[in-house]
């Protein structure tokens, strides 16, 4: 068999059958894999029950006793993955696959491990490991069971319309106005005919009523002008409301998104989606869609009127219409793709700008302004090139299309003209027909621009809905608990990993009681911050559970939970606004009295009062006018004002000088008393008040106890303390040196 990436399902069936024969019993579960040891594509199938696992790869079949397999592991390579295990002291590879079956392999490892430990893995449903949609074969996205293909079948249009639903009444009124408009156009044609046949081009021109005909024509023209005006006003009102609603929806969605969802995208991209994409969607609803309506109504109405007068001629006029529509169809797909490109290029420029201005200090310090200018220049030139190319293409196609559209009018002139010469038709009829043809081909001409606008709108809509459709990783339960907590945190055999196969935290069991201060110690990357992320429920645990006051975190209302947790991080972000508003941010609606008290407790009042504008001092976009220590004290004031039941300190004093640290330590001590506190610190002296110290190593708790206990233990904590003492001694001797010289 030739190596093939796309393996027909019957090869799998073969492998499955061979595996089943070799297995000889009813398997608990099966899994597919599609690479051999040397990454050559093959059809592979494996199955297992409580005793043994059997894999079949091409002709090769292998069975292993699960009891004798130790350290079963999922190994992630680059673009492929494998299952490995130890047997009799030797390492073996069980099977290997590309990333298509990665989830299945991860689940297999999980199950094999459980079976090895003698646990019951329960019933496994047939499609649990299915990584591709059973309907269309499209692979699922990691961790999701929604087929992007089938779920999105529902046309964007049907998604867009409900957005306009609350504004149905004004929109229906405008629809009625459209009807009136079409009626007026048809009536206008009839008057034209009367004017020519009865008054102008006849041997016996009528005298009476001529001024009346003119008056009716003026009236029709006036109404034709008034109708669009009313429509315009309605659409302006409705359109703005729709934009606001859409923007709010997208914005709320962005806020509700989990951290991982947000950090996947650049800020610039999210901004584009919130602002310009929603605007294009509004344009679709209040401009493009009405245009489509107007054009089709006019087209149908006029066609009917013409049919009644002269159906043969009408058919002749309508014959080129399918051709024109066909032309539009190809134009649309073509334009869709080229505008997509323009969108990407424009977004690249936006992202670049955002990137550079966020890091403007780095740019200045390293003196790379020129390099950045060139980078921007390059991106801007790309937009220019693409949009130039698009415009050129557009302008090449359009005049030709316009010409084709005009051909119909000449055809009429020819046919009706011949009829007039032959005496079977009147000049009035020609006038009427020419009026109608103008009315029918006019909208078709406008319709030529619709694909372009349509494509733009659909691209934007797809991008906005993509964001709206994103399922939050962390969701509120059905009966979310909303109550005041006292602050007893309990970790119960918690396992967690940012991906499915690698645990950052393993078997963490830990009690932090009300009022206790737990210090988490360990080297960087060991899972300290992950632990507090879990307490704040920015992520959900993979197995085990975390309870607060005996209730699982997942059963709390997220807002309720987080509103009772206060956080002081290493870096504090201050919003643009005054110091006052930044502190009051923690508890909207608090009094000035509260804010000043909080600032005093945080040792911030003093430095704030030294500023010319005191509490009304504006802090810049990143609070750049304040020092790190000052910002930190504002953050503590925030936390104090919040009066949280659980306090989290993540390296809160890491970036400060000794004197400021002392101030902040004092402030923190006031804050900590009586609250459940979890603190992370590299500098162990920061944790001297901790009632419990937890030493993490490789995602597991290595040691736990009070400072004294751990010192007596003489293990990792002891060594860390000794090492840091050594360091501080060295520092001291450094500072004393000059005095010695004196």
């Amino acid at each position, binding site marked *: 068999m030739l190596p*093939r*990436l796309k393996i027909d399902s019957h090869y799998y069936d073969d492998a499955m059958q061979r595996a089943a024969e070799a297995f000889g019993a009813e398997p608990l579960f099966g899994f597919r894999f599609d690479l051999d040891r040397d990454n050559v594509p093959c059809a592979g199938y494996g199955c297992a029950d409580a005793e043994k696992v059997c894999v079949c790869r091409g002709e090769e079949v292998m069975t292993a006793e699960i009891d004798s397999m130790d350290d079963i592991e999922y190994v992630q390579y680059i*673009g492929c993955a494998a299952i490995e295990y130890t047997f009799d002291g*030797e*390492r073996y590879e069980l099977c290997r696959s590309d990333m298509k079956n990665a989830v299945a392999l991860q689940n297999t490892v999980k199950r094999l491990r459980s079976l090895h430990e003698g646990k019951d893995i329960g019933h496994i449903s047939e499609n649990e490991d299915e990584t591709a949609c059973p309907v269309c074969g*499209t692979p*699922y996205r990691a961790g999701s069971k929604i087929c*992007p*293909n089938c779920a999105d079948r529902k046309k964007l249009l049907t998604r867009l319309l409900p957005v306009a639903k609350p504004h149905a009444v004004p929109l229906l009124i405008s629809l009625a106005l459209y009807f009136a408009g079409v009626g007026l156009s048809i009536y206008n044609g009839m008057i034209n005919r009367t004017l020519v046949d009865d008054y102008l081009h006849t041997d016996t021109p009528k005298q009476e009523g001529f001024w009346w005909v003119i008056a009716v024509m003026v009236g029709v023209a006036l109404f034709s002008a008034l109708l669009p005006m009313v429509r315009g006003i309605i659409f302006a009102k409705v359109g703005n409301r729709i934009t606001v609603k859409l923007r709010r929806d997208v914005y709320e969605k962005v806020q509700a998104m989990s951290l991982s969802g947000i950090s996947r995208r650049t800020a610039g991209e999210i901004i584009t989606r919130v602002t310009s994409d929603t605007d294009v969607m509004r344009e679709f609803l209040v401009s493009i869609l009405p245009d489509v309506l107007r054009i089709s109504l006019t087209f149908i109405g006029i066609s009917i009127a013409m049919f009644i007068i002269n159906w043969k001629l009408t058919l002749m006029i309508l014959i080129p219409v399918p051709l024109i529509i066909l032309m539009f169809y190809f134009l649309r797909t073509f334009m869709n793709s080229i505008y997509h490109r323009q969108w990407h290029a424009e977004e690249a420029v936006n992202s670049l700008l955002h990137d550079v201005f966020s890091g403007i200090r780095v740019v200045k310090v390293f003196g790379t302004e020129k390099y950045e200018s060139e980078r921007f220049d390059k991106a801007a030139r790309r937009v220019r090139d693409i949009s130039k190319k698009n415009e050129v293409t557009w302008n090449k196609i359009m005049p030709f299309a316009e010409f084709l559209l005009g051909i119909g009018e000449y055809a009429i002139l020819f046919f009706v003209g011949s009829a007039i010469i032959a005496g079977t038709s009147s000049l009035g009829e020609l006038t009427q027909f020419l009026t109608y043809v103008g009315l029918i081909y006019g909208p078709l001409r406008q319709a030529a621009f619709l694909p372009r606008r349509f494509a733009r709108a659909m691209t934007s809509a*797809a991008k906005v809905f993509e964001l709206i459709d994103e399922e939050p990783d962390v969701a509120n339960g059905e009966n979310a608990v909303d109550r005041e907590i006292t602050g007893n945190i309990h970790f119960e055999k918690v396992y967690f990993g940012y991906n499915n196969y690698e645990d950052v935290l393993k078997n963490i069991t830990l009690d932090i009681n009300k009022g206790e201060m737990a210090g988490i110690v360990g080297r960087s990357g060991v899972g300290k911050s992950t632990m507090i992320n879990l307490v704040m429920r920015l992520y959900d645990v993979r197995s085990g559970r975390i309870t607060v006051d005996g209730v699982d975190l997942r059963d709390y209302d997220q807002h309720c939970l987080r509103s009772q947790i206060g956080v002081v991080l290493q870096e504090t972000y201050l919003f643009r606004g005054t110091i006052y508003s930044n502190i009051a941010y923690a508890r909207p609606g608090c009094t000035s009295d509260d804010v000043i008290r909080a600032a005093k407790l945080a040792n911030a009042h003093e430095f704030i009062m030294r500023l010319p504008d005191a509490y009304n001092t504006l802090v810049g976009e990143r609070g750049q006018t304040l020092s790190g220590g000052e910002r930190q004290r504002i953050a503590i004031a925030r936390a104090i004002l919040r009066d949280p039941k659980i306090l989290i300190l993540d390296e809160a004093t890491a970036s400060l000088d000794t004197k400021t640290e002392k101030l902040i330590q004092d402030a923190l001590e006031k804050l900590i008393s009586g609250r459940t506190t979890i603190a992370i610190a590299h500098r162990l002296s920061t944790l001297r008040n901790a009632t419990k110290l937890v030493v993490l190593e490789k995602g597991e708790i290595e040691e736990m106890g009070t400072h004294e206990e751990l010192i007596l233990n003489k293990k990792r904590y002891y060594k860390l303390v000794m090492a840091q003492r050594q360091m501080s001694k060295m520092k001291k001797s450094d500072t004393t040196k000059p005095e010695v010289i004196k």
Partner: protein
Amino acid sequence: MEHKNDFLNIVKIEYLTPENAKFSETANGFPKMEAFIPKVKKDDLEESVDDTAPVWQDLGRVFFHRAFPYDSAENFISVTDKEGNEYGLIRSLSEFDGAGREIIERELKRKYYTPVITKIKSVKERFGYSYWEVETESGSASFAMHDTFRNTAKISEERVVLTDVDGNRYEIKDVFALDRKSYRKIELYL
């Protein structure tokens, strides 16, 4: 102005060469290494040994990781333990020959699986997803990409790596060398 950075010399890169590193295979074909390097500390809590004199030691199974997987796949290959702690760097694969080189190359091939696209048969785009039908050096393949533009990594002017929804990678060595129809299909995402 020519700038010479002597400061960088305070750190030394442990280079692994055929002279100080011997690669062989375990019974099941996993690479292992014996190397003549300073004694490797298995745990950072061990009393620090100031002795940096190299000794021959059997390090057991080793893992490889390319420092520049895109820019220069054959150079600067890190040799690590299971946790990713580095024993040393191979400056260039070409320094090795014979069985040792074979072992390294085989393991690299096992670790990095990136089918090379030779032809693009069709690309269909729908609502933020694109569906690809391609020919690769090891047969035809079809895959779906999400947020296609973002997941099309432009390694250089001509080299592109596509990452599909599952995390599989597909490489196009030179987009300009593709046939015209294929190029037109990917042009949109470049």
